[in-house]
């Protein structure tokens, strides 16, 4: 097996082992936690063996011996034992990284060897000899023997999957063109229409299969969190319990990688700013141990990840005072926002406070940057808060980034697209329902529901569409009613980046429609943000 893949397996197992040790630490009597540790140690040994790294294998066997000592109750499950095991895991990680780079690993630190020796003295003579025997010089034989791990699964380089996905993307575009050509050429030819439909379904199936090849469980995203919560709890003198749910929910590998830092930042925020210290919590009648909950769940073709805490929450008025002071938004616009919208201004650039209070991130990955990352993944993020019950940051993402379903629309003669995920409804634009509120165009879409009126003719062509005179149709989104000439149809598209676009583009890329036309895909949040910034200025 490929050395890179083996070291990846090793890294995963090490993370899992760390997690197991944390569980064991919080509940030393839990036999399942102990068994889980033993299992992951065994995977580490298998991987080291397959790598042909004898010194690494020897160290791993030491760990296995220690864990076996725990399992046989020959060693106590206490802070000392777990601390030593944790340091051993750190050392194995260092060794595997060195091996991965093709270098021989350094010998074990003498004090670690001494710690182990003193620990194993309590294991009985035979076991002590077995363990101490491995503490010597760490000679290496890096000639990988290519040991075959017999499993039901195989590991494939992710670049191969990326290539397969990219090729399926091209196939999707060809399928779209074929469907359009068949519709245009021979609407009456039943055989051709049936053939095109069957091709359509087969491509859908293939796309779905390849898409799921790149999926990974959210558990991978959560792996680092227990350690972070533990370390930060100690650092800030807080007591926190981390609850992880939905580890089996699968997400595109690219998203797992992109979300790692934002998720850590959100958990750090919850720990640092959300949760109160035990005394404060007791004073307001809460339990001393705060809770940070990270969950993942499927919502159709979307995944929702939530980071919530039962801390002090975020005050919308405080957010408002900051964004007004920093001119992120003007007073007139602020008056139109409800409490939830005010709260979500926290994700705007410049909304970070400089003082201690406020419950807003001040270090690491900022909230504005988190939103940018989420938006770049075609997702959205929002926050809800209740001063009594804490705060909850909710991230919604598409399951996969490979193919983007879009709605094509006409703006006069030109065709544009926008992601289907943004579309709430398509409605007729009634000229009598247009209003002007404080200089901003609004439209009544239902009794008691008025939303911003965003004329894309005006914004993209510089010439307004005139409802009642020009052909007009409304695309209702969470940002307002986008007014276009006509909604045309939906299609799966593959987004091609726009290299020529300047930094603040209103387009997230381009695609090729079934008619073979290059179509720009609108970045609605960027457009709305730009409009809002213009109004504020």
């Amino acid at each position, binding site marked *: 097996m490929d050395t890179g893949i083996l070291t990846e397996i090793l890294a995963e197992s090490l993370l899992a082992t760390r997690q197991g040790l944390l569980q064991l630490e919080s509940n030393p009597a839990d036999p399942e936690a102990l068994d889980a540790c033993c299992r992951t140690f065994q995977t580490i040994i298998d991987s080291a063996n397959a790598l042909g790294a004898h010194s690494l294998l020897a160290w791993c066997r030491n760990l296995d011996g220690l864990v076996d000592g725990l399992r046989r109750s020959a060693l106590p499950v206490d802070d000392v034992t777990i601390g030593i095991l944790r340091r051993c895991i750190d050392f194995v990680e260092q060794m595997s990284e060195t091996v991965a780079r093709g270098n021989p690993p350094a010998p074990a630190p003498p004090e670690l060897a001494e710690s182990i020796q003193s620990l194993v003295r309590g294991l009985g003579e035979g076991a002590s000899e077995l363990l101490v025997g491995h503490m010597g010089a760490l000679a290496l034989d890096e000639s990988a023997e290519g040991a075959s791990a017999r499993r039901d699964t195989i590991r494939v380089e992710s670049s191969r999957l990326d290539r397969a996905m990219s090729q399926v993307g091209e196939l999707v575009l060809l399928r779209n063109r074929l469907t359009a050509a068949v519709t245009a050429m021979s609407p009456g030819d039943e055989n051709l229409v049936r053939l095109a439909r069957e091709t359509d379904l087969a491509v859908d199936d293939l796309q779905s299969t390849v898409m799921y090849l790149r999926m990974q469980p959210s558990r991978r995203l959560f792996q680092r969190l227990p350690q972070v919560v533990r370390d930060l709890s100690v650092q800030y003198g807080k007591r926190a319990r981390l609850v992880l749910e939905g580890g089996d929910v699968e997400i595109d590998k690219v998203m797992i990688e992109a979300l790692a830092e934002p998720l850590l930042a959100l958990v750090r925020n919850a720990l640092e700013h959300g949760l109160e210290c035990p005394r404060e919590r007791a004073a307001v009648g809460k339990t001393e141990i705060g809770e940070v909950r990270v969950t993942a769940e499927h919502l*159709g073709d979307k995944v929702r990840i939530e980071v919530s805490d039962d801390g002090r929450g975020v005050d919308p008025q405080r957010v408002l005072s900051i964004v007004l002071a920093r001119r992120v938004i003007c007073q007139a616009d602020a008056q139109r926002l409800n409490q939830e919208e005010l709260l979500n201004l926290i994700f705007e650039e410049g909304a970070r406070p400089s003082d201690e209070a406020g419950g807003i991130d001040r270090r690491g990955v900022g909230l504005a940057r988190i939103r940018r990352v989420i938006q770049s993944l075609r997702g959205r993020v929002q926050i809800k808060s209740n001063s009594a019950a804490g705060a909850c940051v909710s991230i919604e993402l598409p399951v996969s980034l490979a193919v983007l379903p879009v709605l094509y629309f006409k703006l006069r003669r030109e065709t544009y697209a926008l992601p289907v995920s943004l579309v709430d409804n398509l409605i007729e634009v009634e000229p009598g329902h247009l209003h002007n509120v404080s200089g901003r165009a609004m439209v009544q879409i239902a009794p008691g529901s008025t939303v911003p009126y965003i004329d894309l003719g005006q914004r993209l062509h510089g010439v307004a569409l005139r409802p009642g005179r020009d052909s007009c*149709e409304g695309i209702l989104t969470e940002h307002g009613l986008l007014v276009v000439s006509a909604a045309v149809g*939906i299609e799966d598209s593959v987004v091609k980046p726009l290299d020529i676009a300047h930094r603040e583009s209103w387009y997230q890329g381009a695609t090729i429609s079934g008619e073979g036309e290059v179509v720009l895909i609108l970045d609605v949040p960027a457009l709305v943000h730009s409009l809002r910034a213009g109004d504020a200025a």
Partner: protein
Amino acid sequence: MSHLSLEEMRSGFLGIADATFEFQRNLKRRLREIDRKALNAQVLVRRHGQELAGYGVVARSFRDGAQRLQQAAMQLQHAIHPLMLGFMETLRDSHQAEQLQRLSVAVRERAPQLNETLRRHQHMLEMRSDQSRHATLRLSHMLKRVEHIVTELEYVVINGRIEAALKTDVRTALTQVSADMNKAVIQVRQLLREYAASIGRVLP
């Protein structure tokens, strides 16, 4: 038609012309509405992914039906044109024949060509009557075709409502979309019925 007076004919034709204008205007709007509802259903399906794959078939059939309906409506418009043209020519010939018939016998005896002209007009009127009958038959056939597609759409909507009832998680959204589609189809059905009735009053 031949038994009707010129005034009755004029009034009947104008009635059909008005009804046709109204029908064309409303049909365009209603068809756009149906297409929009079909697109809405497809958007909903896309937003929910595999979970709504069954409803996806319904949404697609509805959109296909909506597009077939648009094509049929276009042919219906083409069928209306010769009928309206025939009406105008019939009115013109009837008017001219009536003018000639009003001339006194003495005048007609002094100008024997007038009788020939009158016979020609009456012959033309009979031809127009035949053409109008054919155009009416064609229009009636096209109306039936459009009605047939509307019936297919109604069947698709029923399937959609059944599918919506089976989906517990997104039942509200699906039920709303299905109800919207149903409403749009009913409006087209009503429009067709009213138009067919307007034509039937003049061209039984």
